[in-house]
């Protein structure tokens, strides 16, 4: 009896529509975030994360409406990331019904933003998203560095130090994505996940690279993550969330069924 490890499906939203084609059987509208969120809730998702990838700032308001609609029908925690840059952005998302916001680039530009957001709204609703990649500097040991712009732009910031600093500034949780593994279906970077999880006292969500149900269980058992996030294996109905949880349970992981 105790706290369950969480499974979090992630949806990319562009101008209010879910992209990367979610395919469930008998789905009326594969792009409708409300319908997809409801399906995941029924399957037993522990939380849902929306990543707003809307490029134009004029269209950003649409994610607020998405969150409002989902929060009126789906009663599990919702996280929104993408384009959160100001305290006002945070407030708008929370007022719309999000429980947490995920801050990425804005924290790198101005780390104090995380501190201010945590002080104003509470640590529980501030997730710091970290995109990390292995680097192999000449004459130095390899390490993990923070990258921005979808893994293209290095920042020179060490991922472990950054995670510790963000925790100190009041982040309630870390969403850790391996940019080496993202989209590869080869599994999480377990070494990275474990290094970050052991370096901070706040929960860590592992992300990037899930291709099989064993990858999810490995993230928890070997990566020491507190939660696992995945997109494509759930979207394309390769596996349901419930199947994933049964598999994790069979490997000795406590889950909510």
């Amino acid at each position: 009896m105790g706290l369950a490890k969480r499974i979090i499906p992630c949806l990319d939203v562009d101008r209010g529509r879910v992209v990367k084609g979610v395919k469930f059987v008998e789905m009326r509208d594969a792009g409708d975030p409300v319908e997809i969120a409801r399906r995941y809730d029924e399957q037993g998702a522990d939380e849902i994360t929306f990543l707003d990838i809307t490029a134009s700032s004029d269209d950003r308001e649409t994610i607020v409406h998405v969150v409002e609609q989902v929060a009126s029908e789906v009663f599990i925690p919702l996280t929104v990331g993408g384009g959160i840059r100001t305290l006002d952005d945070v407030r708008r998302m929370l007022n719309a019904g999000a429980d947490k916001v995920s801050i990425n680039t804005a924290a790198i530009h101005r780390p104090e933003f995380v501190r201010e957001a945590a002080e104003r709204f509470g640590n529980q609703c501030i997730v710091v998203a970290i995109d990390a990649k292995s680097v192999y500097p000449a004459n130095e040991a390899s390490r993990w560095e923070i990258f921005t712009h979808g893994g293209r732009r290095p920042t020179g910031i060490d991922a472990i130090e950054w995670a510790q600093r963000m925790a100190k500034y009041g982040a309630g949780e870390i969403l850790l994505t391996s940019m080496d593994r993202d989209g590869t279906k080869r599994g999480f970077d377990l070494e990275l996940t474990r290094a970050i999880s052991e370096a901070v006292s706040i929960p860590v969500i592992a992300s990037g690279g899930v291709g099989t149900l064993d990858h999810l269980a490995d993230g928890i058992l070997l990566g020491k993550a507190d939660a696992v996030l995945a997109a494509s294996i759930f979207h394309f109905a390769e596996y349901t969330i419930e199947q994933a949880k049964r598999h994790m349970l069979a490997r000795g992981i406590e889950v909510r069924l």
Partner: protein
Amino acid sequence: MTSIAIIDYGMGNLRSVAKALEHVAPQTRVHVTQNRRDILDADRVVFPGQGSIRDCMHELARWELIDVIRDAARNKPFLGLCLGPQALLDFSEENGGVECLKVLPGRVVWFNELRDPVSGERLKVPHMGWNQVHQLRDHPLWQGIPQDSRFYFVHSYYLQSNDETLTVGQSHYCFNFTVAIARDNLFAVQFHPEKSAQAGLRLLANFVKWSP
């Protein structure tokens, strides 16, 4: 039409609480309010809260809501959520120590350096996610909720009741701690029923029907 007042004192997002109550009780009028009169007139009161206890107590004083909350907690169906029950106790360790509302006997204590008793691994704080709630005795608000159902939690401080007879629910995170307290017309939970899927919605539905 019965009415429910959700006390809004500027601490956190109350929209989810309101939406969940409207979902389970469409025939009820749900107000999110800081108006004393609304709270005094409501048939039922929900006292939620997020953030730090010092800010919470400060805002309650600033909105002149302290006596109204004490009154409601004695006189009508009253549901405390998350930071709400912490504020109802005598004292919290958070923010260097804060005197609270003293509606219920007990204190609020930090989850300090927890280690898993079996593996020795450090446990994460905040205690975040879905934990089982063990119902210690029957209560109308537990009706229809299976024993040891999971609810969603996010908190770094926990309730330490001085009166064990008031504890109606416990969870385990390194040790057993109080997560639900009940006395007469008052029920208060550390978790978020509005974010706890079917089990949470059932608890809210039970609250709407409750006649203590």
